[in-house]
């Protein structure tokens, strides 16, 4: 009767079309700011601050060039005296009476984001899987309390946590280090990881491991050969959440890093041009920064959906 929808009645075609239309309109409207970011990244700085805002404009790579370079203003004579421009960015820059003097900090910050983001994700998922298995399969004393304590660590505002961490890292020399940030993000993520993964692992019937152990595997081997493969959906879902958090995190990054280990989110809002913010460069930085997460999410969207909905089903 009802096709596959849990709905009041099997939705008729009209009802489906209307539903579809509304959702599509919503999706398009929410895409407008994102589209604007992309468009802005292709504008020249004067175009980006023109009023009224320009929807039709001449696209240029200036935003991307500005994102990756540092430039300085020079006199016409100096510019004449240089050789021919080397590449698009050089050409664009010279048209503005400026000269490229070096690379900007964007790429190193992006790299930091990659290292710290993926590093902490891998660590959090690894530790989380082990701990989740432990809680799931063994009778651990005070298990419920421990789990609740683990979860409640997520309730502290990051700034509150940052105060003592700042002091602690200062003493330990972990300020502004990738290792310090990885540890911190791992600690923040591992609570979510344990919670989610325990739910996934709880779903895997014990009979499989026990059958394997009866067949001669040790507990460890049973874990690696039987349980883990069945938990891959859960692990993938958890990994995405951990990565999204670590990738986009700002508060800890801005307070605990300054040069060496600074990631992209604290850096992007500080990209300024000759006057105010260099909006095309900021937009370019935002677009590039979005790409890895977007790719990851689209590839693993089924696991992501499962993860969110699964987290909702459990307590």
């Amino acid at each position, binding site marked *: 009767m009802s096709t596959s929808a849990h709905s009041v009645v099997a939705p008729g075609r009209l009802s489906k079309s209307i539903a579809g239309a509304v959702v599509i309109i919503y999706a398009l409207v929410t895409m407008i700011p994102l589209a604007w970011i992309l468009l802005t990244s292709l504008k020249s700085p004067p175009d980006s601050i023109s009023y009224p805002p320009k929807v039709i404009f001449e696209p240029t790579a200036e935003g991307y060039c500005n994102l*990756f370079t540092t430039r300085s203003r020079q006199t016409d004579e100096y510019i004449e005296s240089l050789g021919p421009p080397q*590449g698009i960015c050089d050409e664009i820059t010279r048209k503005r009476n400026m000269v490229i003097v070096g690379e900007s900090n964007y790429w190193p910050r992006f790299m930091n984001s990659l290292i710290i983001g993926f590093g902490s994700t891998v660590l959090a998922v690894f530790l989380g899987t082990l701990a989740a298995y432990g809680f799931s399969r063994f009778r651990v004393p005070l298990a419920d309390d421990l789990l609740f304590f683990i979860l409640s660590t997520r309730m502290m505002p990051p700034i509150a946590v940052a105060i003592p961490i700042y002091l602690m890292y200062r003493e330990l020399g972990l300020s502004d280090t990738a290792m310090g940030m990885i540890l911190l993000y791992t600690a923040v993520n591992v609570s979510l990881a344990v919670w989610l993964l325990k739910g996934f692992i709880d779903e895997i019937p014990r009979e499989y491991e026990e059958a394997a152990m009866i067949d001669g595997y040790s507990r460890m081997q049973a874990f690696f050969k039987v349980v883990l493969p069945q938990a891959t959906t859960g692990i993938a879902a958890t990994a995405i959440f951990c990565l999204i958090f670590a990738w986009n995190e700002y508060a800890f990054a801005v307070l605990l890093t300054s040069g060496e280990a600074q990631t992209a989110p604290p850096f992007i809002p500080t990209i300024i041009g000759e006057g105010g913010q260099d909006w095309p460069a900021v937009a370019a930085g935002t677009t590039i920064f979005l790409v890895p997460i977007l790719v990851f999410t689209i590839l693993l969207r089924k696991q992501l959906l499962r993860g969110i909905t699964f987290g909702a089903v459990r307590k």
Partner: protein
Amino acid sequence: MSRALKLTLGMTTALSLTAAASVSAKADELTLCWAAWDPANALVELSKDFEAQTGTEMSFEFVPWPNFADRILNELNAGGKLCDLLIGDSQWIGGSAENGYYVKLNDFFEQEGISMDDFAAAAVNAYSTWPKGTPNFWALPAMGDANGWFYRKDWFSRPELQAEFKEKYGRDLAPPATWDEMKEVGEFFQGREIDGKTVYGAAIFTERASEGITMGATSAMYPYGFKYENTPGSYDMEGAVNSPEAVAGLEAYKELYKCCTPPGYTDSYMTEGLDAFKSGQVAMAMNWFAFFPGLAKDENVGGDKIGFFVNPKQNVAASTLGGQGISVVANTDNMDGALAYIKWFAQPDVQKKWWDLGGYSVHNDVLNDPSFKDSQPFAADFLVAMNQVQDFWQEPSYAILLQDMQKRLHDYVVADKGTAKEALDQLIEDWTETFEDDGKINN
């Protein structure tokens, strides 16, 4: 990604002035930290001489002003090694001296024959000494600065506008000399159509996060008669901070904000003000003298189109002090190199070149030179301003004091909370609490 790689590979130039990764300075490397603005670029140019002379490789870490204090103070507190040399804001001296973040330079100056008498007294007082006014030097005055104004000279010289203004106000259309005049000129231009676009009176500082609105509002309050203490060093603020004159000054600033500024400038500081002026939105703007060389050369609004004037007076003549001194960070790994830079920078001919490139030297040889006044259209105004500067608290707790003032001012001026007198009264309460905590006031 590969396009980005190609871009980065394609950009090879003789000097790679990247800020960032060298934390542990080797003996021939120095990292200098400052704010990211025009003079910083000039310093990069200037430092090429130092590099040529000594073979030291200079890298620079420039942070935009709104994040500068936050980031660098954070760095200093965390014991970071990012900076060997720091051109820190004048208000940081108290804290940095007492916490041992800066190196005390007295012995070095004596050893190398660098005399503070060679520099403008007001600058030395403001940028180098702590306790204030005593001969304990924690920085070499590097960048003299004050808050000044610039205006669209081309608009002011239009005959029809001049006629209309004269008719309305009975005097010539000219840069305002008092704050009363400032309001009149602002109102005159507010909402006017010029060359097909709506323009506005003035762009002023209203920024909340770091120091913007304080620097802006004090430009109005000092001339009215605002003072921090009745007697310097006594911390008695009642009647100085909230005197009727101070209240009038704060009210004048708010009136200017309400009547004569472009829409949307509720959190604007240096860069937003420059943007507003350069895009032709405003007839006048306030900003730091540091930006004036760049403005004078601007292709859209510079040259004949721009004029400069010093902060208008009212009851007294006063300008808000800016500027910084250059210090050696105490836990640098390259102490000798850093000191060598200071020694080089203090030389008269380097100071002269600094001024030529766009930096504001405060060396007496440069300032007292007869040709100085004419070297730039704003040079004379700069001298006037530096002679009438007033500065914010330089106490070690200055950050709290500044945050309190930012909050009270922004609440009143932008968010329409309470009256000017209430804001200043509450400010005295805030400041009293801090001074009591510090033991400066006995309760």
